[in-house]
């Protein structure tokens, strides 16, 4: 019993200390914004490896998610004779929910894990330590550009996801299933509010971007400098990101859309 209490206590203290470390680390990263702006070339390279390289998976997923949504929605709605609302169903679910969440999950799998592995490997091969000895702060030189690149690109990718999802949903709904063009768009336009739905969807994705990249870079920076440590950090990065995104999504949805 005493032993159990002891391990639980140690675990809690460990968790708290990690959380504290992560917060201090985040603070340092945010201070690195200045260094990021001073080196636009480095930043563009990170935007490329974090954003552009994730674009393909985002586009393909969006196409399929939009098509599936449209098909499933049609099958359900047609029983009630309400297939004109298909556009509304596809667009609202993509904008409020699926766009931000799926993009964040895909992003953490594609870019987040790569960030963790890259930073973890740099730590394991003493590249970060050698930078420190060259009087270059690796948090500002290596971590900060990656963090801000993630923070900017995920919302952009999310917007692309939403738009492509809706258009591919339109293709399936209108061209294949024969829902009337006009009502598909007009139902959507009359109910989707730019300020309420789209802006809130984008806010969600900004929050997710912040959390997912924070977890990714911290896991990499905090990884044990061994091959086992790096692989564990990479797994943790994806798992924690997914849990954080889904939990935050519930809170944000409750805050944003529940008064309807």
């Amino acid at each position, binding site marked *: 019993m005493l032993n159990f209490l002891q391990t639980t206590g140690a675990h809690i203290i460990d968790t708290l200390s990690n959380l504290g470390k992560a917060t201090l680390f985040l603070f340092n990263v945010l201070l690195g914004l200045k260094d990021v702006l001073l080196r636009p070339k480095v930043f563009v390279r990170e935007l490329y490896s974090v954003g552009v390289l994730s674009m393909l998976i985002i586009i393909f997923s969006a196409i399929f998610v939009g098509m599936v949504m449209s098909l499933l929605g049609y099958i359900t709605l047609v029983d009630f004779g309400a297939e004109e609302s298909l556009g509304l169903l596809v667009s609202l679910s993509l904008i409020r929910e699926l766009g931000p969440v799926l993009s964040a999950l895909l992003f953490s799998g594609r870019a987040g894990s790569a960030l963790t592995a890259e930073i973890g490997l740099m730590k394991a091969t*003493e*590249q970060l330590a*050698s930078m*420190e*000895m*060259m*009087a*270059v702060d690796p948090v500002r030189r290596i971590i900060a550009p990656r963090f801000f690149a993630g923070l900017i690109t995920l919302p952009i990718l999310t917007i692309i996801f939403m738009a492509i999802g809706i258009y591919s949903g339109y293709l399936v709904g209108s061209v294949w299933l024969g829902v009337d063009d006009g009502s598909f768009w007009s139902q959507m336009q009359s109910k989707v509010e730019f300020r309420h739905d789209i802006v809130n969807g984008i806010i969600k994705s900004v929050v997710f971007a912040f959390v997912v990249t924070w977890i990714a870079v911290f896991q990499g920076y905090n990884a044990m400098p061994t091959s086992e440590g790096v692989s564990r950090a990479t797994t943790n990065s994806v798992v924690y990101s997914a849990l954080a995104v889904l939990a935050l999504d519930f809170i944000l949805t409750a805050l944003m859309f529940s008064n309807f």
Partner: protein
Amino acid sequence: MSDSLVSIRDVHFSWNPRREIYTGVSLEIPEGKITAIMGPSGTGKTTLLRLIGGQLRPSSGSVQVAGEEIPKLNREKLYKARRRMGMLFQSGALLTDLSVFENIAFPIREHYDFTESMIRDIVLMKLELVGLRGARDLMPSELSGGMKRRVALARAIVLDPLLMMYDEPFTGLDPVTLGTIVTLIKELNESLGLTSVIVSHDIRETFSIADHVCILSEGIIVAAGSPEELMNSDSEFVQQFVNGKPDGPMPFHYPAGDYTQDLLDGDI
């Protein structure tokens, strides 16, 4: 002492409260000389370099480099002090996404606003010193272990440090490269007027170039002196370490209970 560049006094350090790495290490590193810190594996020789570089802080005691108390410096001053230090890591620690040239140019680009032609001159000079001027466009992944270490050496001296630290510079090299590195460390120390600290457990190579050797064991400096003095030391421990005898004051066996009893216990 005015002629020592680094002076470490009564340093205690531990990763966790149960295992102390240092229990009062004191040592002086004289300016312009090559000092070697030797000792069995796992005694925290590399940790000592990290303390000097300010990457770790001791639990108590003082670490002074050129009169500055390293553990007490704030971030900015610490980074300034580090510009006067160079460190050669065991793995080389080259930045994998930059070419050899860019790796060596990296510290200059980070700290100074030099023109491209000035940077080129400095980098080529340093590469010539280590004999790799022709390899400037290669990527680190295309280099052999020995070449990596030479490039890392060129990078470490590019800011003209006062103090050079070598972390296990002799491990894992073929005999020819080993000879090159030994000569390079010696030559650099003379021609650039450096103060060098070598952490190693390779007796032969280290003794051939070191002016001063400290042997670290179980958290303290157990012996210090010139290589000749240590070779002729009558301390059993030093004799065991220098001559590589398997058993002696440094036990072959990890502490364990009675052997017979241990075997008998297994029968139950």
